[in-house]
């Protein structure tokens, strides 16, 4: 009969089996399929032709890099803004708001469950000509200004709005990891508020902050609806390029090649950052 320790040692892998099997079929295999398609000849729909690098050549000689730069740039701006917006809130949730924190957290969670495009549509109604903002300005103050819709700024606003919880929650986890005793000790030793922030708060809450950066950046790079709905297709991010290749252009192999390149960028970033972290410490193992 197996001993108790044997039983325990086998329990971990055993419980992991369903998730692993599922992710092999549902995640790894589809990604392999994309990689496979990216080596197929142009405008074909099967997986078993002679492989070639033609699609990659096409991508590198085309103007897709502009879309790539847009995606990365918009995501970078979004993440920086989010960090500035979220840090005070995370600090408040972790240290100041006390029992109100749970309710506030819930309020920040609810919009996550309404689909992105619906919420962005709310912003259209807000900003559109004769909409909530401009209509109010016109009827109350007689001011008539151009609508801000379909500009780069409004795309960033939409992305900040959609990805805010993904920055806020990891950041709050991070900030709440800083022990009060350490901060008090620093104050007692005569550190200024700024010094405490720089030497204690920031380094100790770094794991949560970095996860927040990573999560919101990766999601923002993959954003598509913001540019389509709010940006009026003025800016074409890489995800939109990929979608065009799959739908209008009916060129699956080219779209796959673009997707593979995006996956490589995102995957490299995620793996480098995640490798350095002990998830148990962040998620609160006791």
């Amino acid at each position, binding site marked *: 009969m197996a001993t*108790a320790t044997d039983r*325990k040692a086998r*329990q*971990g*892998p*055993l*419980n*992991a089996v369903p*998730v*692993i099997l*599922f*992710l092999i079929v*549902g*995640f790894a295999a*589809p990604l392999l*399929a*994309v990689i496979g*398609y990216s080596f197929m000849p142009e405008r074909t*729909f099967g997986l078993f032709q002679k492989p070639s690098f033609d699609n990659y050549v096409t991508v590198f000689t085309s103007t897709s890099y502009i879309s790539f730069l847009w995606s990365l740039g918009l995501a970078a701006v979004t993440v920086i803004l989010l960090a500035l917006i979220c840090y*005070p*809130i995370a600090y*408040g949730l972790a240290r*100041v708001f006390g029992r109100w924190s749970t309710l*506030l957290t*819930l*309020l920040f969670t*609810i*919009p*996550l*469950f*309404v*689909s*992105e*495009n619906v919420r962005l*549509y*709310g*912003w259209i*109604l*807000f900003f559109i000509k*004769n*909409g*909530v903002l401009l*209509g109010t300005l016109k009827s109350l103050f007689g001011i008539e200004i151009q609508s801000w819709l379909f500009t780069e700024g409004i795309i960033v606003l939409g992305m900040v*709005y959609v990805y805010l919880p993904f920055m806020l929650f990891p950041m709050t986890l991070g900030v709440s990891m800083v022990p009060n005793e350490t901060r008090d000790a620093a104050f007692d030793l005569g550190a200024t508020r700024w010094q405490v922030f720089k030497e204690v708060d920031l380094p100790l809450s770094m794991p949560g902050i970095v996860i927040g950066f990573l*999560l919101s950046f*990766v999601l923002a790079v993959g954003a598509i609806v913001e540019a389509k*709905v709010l940006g009026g297709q003025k800016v074409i991010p890489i995800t939109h390029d*990929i*979608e065009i290749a*799959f739908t209008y252009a009916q060129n699956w192999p080219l779209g796959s090649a673009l*997707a593979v390149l*995006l*996956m490589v960028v*995102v995957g490299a970033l995620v*793996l480098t950052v*995640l490798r350095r972290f*002990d998830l*148990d410490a962040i*998620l609160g*193992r006791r």
Partner: protein
Amino acid sequence: MNPAERSQRWRASLLWAWTLTVVVFMYLPALCLLLASATASRYFTFPIPKWGFDWWQKTFNSFEIHQLFKTSISIALLVTVIAVTIAFFGALAFARYEWKGRSLYQKIVLLPIFFPQSVLGLALLLWFNAVGIDLSWKSAVFAHLVWIVPVVTLVISIQVYSFDPALEEAAFDLGATRWQVMKEVTLPVLFPGIFSGSLFAFLLSWGNFPLSLFTTGADTTIPEYLYAKMVAGYTPGVPVLGTVSTVTAAFLLLGGYGLIVLRRRARLK
């Protein structure tokens, strides 16, 4: 009040003011949707010339909308049941047991969450095509699961971290079978995590657009329908459905949270 206390107060009120401003920012679009749904006219102008709830009635009486609800709910319910079952065991492996490959396993589980959903949707479309699976709401269930199983695993894991393994050991020592331990100890203790996991699963599936877009085939979910209507052929039915989605999410989450609080209170008594 001494100066230090006063500055502390002052900082706290600044934090409150900022946080509440951002909360308002988060709900501004929902408010706009609500306003737009209460217009009597076909097109939205503000200030609203004539208020009316005709569009609510029209939307709820439409056969097309009933079909959409049916599709969306079927997908979300199936996703919830399957995701919670797989994720329950996944969470035990994630947070409860000490084993060799655990750290790697944790990172693999996180990967799909960190992956752009629109690309994942396309990848699944290619995969279904390569294997020869016809697209319908059933393939969308599978697609949703790829993203939702990891999320739910994470949600349940957070509960598992605060679970004391000694409880299970004690039950084993008292002669309980594996099944009894599961039913009498593990499941009840982890219930809050499983409950919030199911809420997450249901709502994330209900609101998902990027995965559904590529994998539902001829079937249509509510977010897909709304998107199609936004791009072409706006009707005030769009804000009506949008408002319904927001209110449902708020209701389920606040209600679920209330239930958990009540349960905790009852236990403490």
